[in-house]
C-alpha cells in the first residue's frame, strides 16, 4: 500500500484530524494526525486497514513539543505503518490506544515514564522501568547526563 492510497482511505474518514501522509522508507507511510482524532484514526487503522499488530509506541522530545509515534504491522499486507502526532510540552496528553491494541498497555507505560507523555484513559498508567516515586522523565532533553561544556574542554585537551 502506498502513501497515496493511505491518504485516499483515511482523508474522508478523519477530515481535519489527518494532517498528512508522507512516504516513509520501508513502510507504507508516515501518517501525521491531530491528537483529538487519535482514537478515530487508531480504529480506522486497526479495523479498516487491518494493521492488527501494534509493534511499538515511543516518544520524542523536540523541546518545544513532544512527538508520540506508533508502529503497527499488518499481517496480510506484510508491511508497517508509522503514525505520529505532536503534543505540546506543557500539556502532553494523548488518548491511550490500549482499548484498540491491548499491546499498547506496556509500551505506553514506558513512553509515559521516559518521555512524560500522559495517555488518557490508560488502564494502568504506572511507572514500569524506573522506580515508583521517581520524579524524572529521563528521555527529556532537559535531563542532562553531564554538562556539554565539560565535554568541550575535555576534547580540546586531548
Amino acid at each position, binding site marked *: 500500500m502506498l502513501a497515496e492510497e493511505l491518504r485516499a482511505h483515511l482523508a474522508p474518514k478523519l477530515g481535519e484530524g489527518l494532517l498528512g501522509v508522507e512516504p*516513509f522508507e520501508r513502510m507504507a507511510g508516515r501518517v501525521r494526525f491531530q491528537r483529538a482524532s487519535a482514537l478515530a484514526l487508531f480504529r480506522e487503522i486497526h479495523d479498516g486497514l487491518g494493521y492488527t499488530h501494534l*509493534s511499538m509506541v515511543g516518544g520524542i522530545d523536540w523541546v518545544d513539543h513532544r512527538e508520540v509515534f506508533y508502529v503497527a504491522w499488518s499481517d496480510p499486507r506484510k508491511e508497517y505503518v508509522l503514525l505520529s502526532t505532536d503534543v505540546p510540552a506543557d500539556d502532553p496528553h494523548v488518548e491511550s490506544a490500549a482499548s484498540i491494541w491491548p499491546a499498547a498497555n506496556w*509500551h505506553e507505560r514506558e513512553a509515559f515514564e521516559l518521555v512524560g507523555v500522559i495517555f488518557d484513559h490508560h488502564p494502568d498508567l504506572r511507572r514500569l*522501568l*524506573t522506580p515508583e516515586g521517581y520524579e524524572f522523565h529521563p528521555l527529556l532533553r532537559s535531563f542532562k547526563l553531564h554538562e556539554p561544556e565539560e565535554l568541550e574542554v575535555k576534547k580540546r585537551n586531548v
Partner: protein
Amino acid sequence: MSEMWINMGPQHPMTHGLWNLRVHIDGEIILDVDPEMGYLHRGIEKISEDRHYNEVITLMDRTCYVAGLAWEHLYIMAAEDALHIEVPERALWIRTLNDEFQRIASHIMWFAAFVQDIGLMSPFLYGMRDRDLVLDLFQSFTGGRLTYEYNRAGGVRNDLPLGFTDRARKVCDWLLPRFNEYDALCLGSDIFHRRCDGLGVLSAQDCVDYGVTGPMLRSAGVRRDLRKDRPYASYDKVDFDVAMANTADVTGRYLVRMEELRQSVRIVRQCLDWLDRHPGPVMADRLPRWLGAPYAPVGREGYLLKRNYPTGVGFSSVEEPHGEAQAYVVNTGGEHPYRVKFRSPVFANLGAAKKYMIGYRVADIPPIMGSVDICVGEVDR
C-alpha cells in the same frame, strides 16, 4: 483458602535475571500476575543520545547479552538507514551468518536454562557444551565471546579469518545430531511432558492483540517470520522453512525453537558456501570521516566542525532469537543520534503475562516463564 500476593524474584531461580513477578494466589491457583521490571534499566536509549553512531554498538551487546550480534545488526541497519550508507554485499552475508549463529547460541542457552527449570539436569550441561563451540567461532573473528562490537556503520569491522568456513562447517556437522539428542532427552522424558503439555496457552488472537512475536507467536500457528515476510540482509537469497507448531503451549514453543535450530544450521551452511565463493570488501569505502570508521581515525577537527551532515530517520526490524526487534533512529544532522528507540520482543511477550499465566498453578510458573525466553537486558534496556 486465603488469597495473598507473593513475590517471585528478584532473586529467584525462575527469573533468569533480575526482575520480580508478583503473583496473586488462592492456594495453588494463580489469580493475577504483575511483572515488575526495571532492575536492570541502564538507560541505554538515553546514553545513545550522547554517543557517536558507532559507539552505540558497544551498548547493543549489553542490551541483549545472549544475542549481541543480532542487536548490533538491528541497530546498525537503522543507523545506516538514517545516515544513508550503502553496505557491501559480503558484509550483508557475514551479518546473516552472525544472526543465525547467534540464534543457535541463544536458543541453546534457552534450552539449557529451560530444561533445568523443569527438573532435567543433564541437558543443561550438554547445552552449555555445544553453545561454547559457537562462542569459540565468534571469538575467532570478533575477539569476544559475549560482547562482540563487530558491526560498524558501513559494514563489519574485519573479514573472517582464514580457515573459518571449514571450522564453522565442522561445528554445524557436530551440532545437528546434538539437536536430536536434545529431543530424545526432553520429548522422550515423561517428566517433560507432564510439566509442559497444555501449559501457558496463548491463543493466536491473543498473541496478535498483545503484540507477541517470535517462537511464542509461531507456536500458536501464526506464520510470521520477518526473515520471510520482510527480508533484510541476505535472507531473500537463502532457503529455509519457517518453524511452526499449533499447540500454543510450552511444548509447542520448545518444538518451534528446536526446529529453528535446525533451520539456522541450514542457513549457516548456505552463507558459508556463498562466503567461500565471493571474496570482497566488507566495509563501504566512502564513509564520512566523522563517523569514526575503522582504519580512518577521527581527527580532532572531525569532532569540532559540523558540516554536511545528512539528516534522516532510520527504521529497521529483525527477527531476533526472541522475536521481532525494531529500532528507530532519528538523525537531525549531528554526530550523535537525536533519539534512539528500541522495541524489545520480550518486553511485549511479558506484557501479555496475564493472558498466559492466570488459572495455572504456582508450580507451573517456572516452565511457563522459561518458555517465554526472558532476557531482562533487552526488556529493561
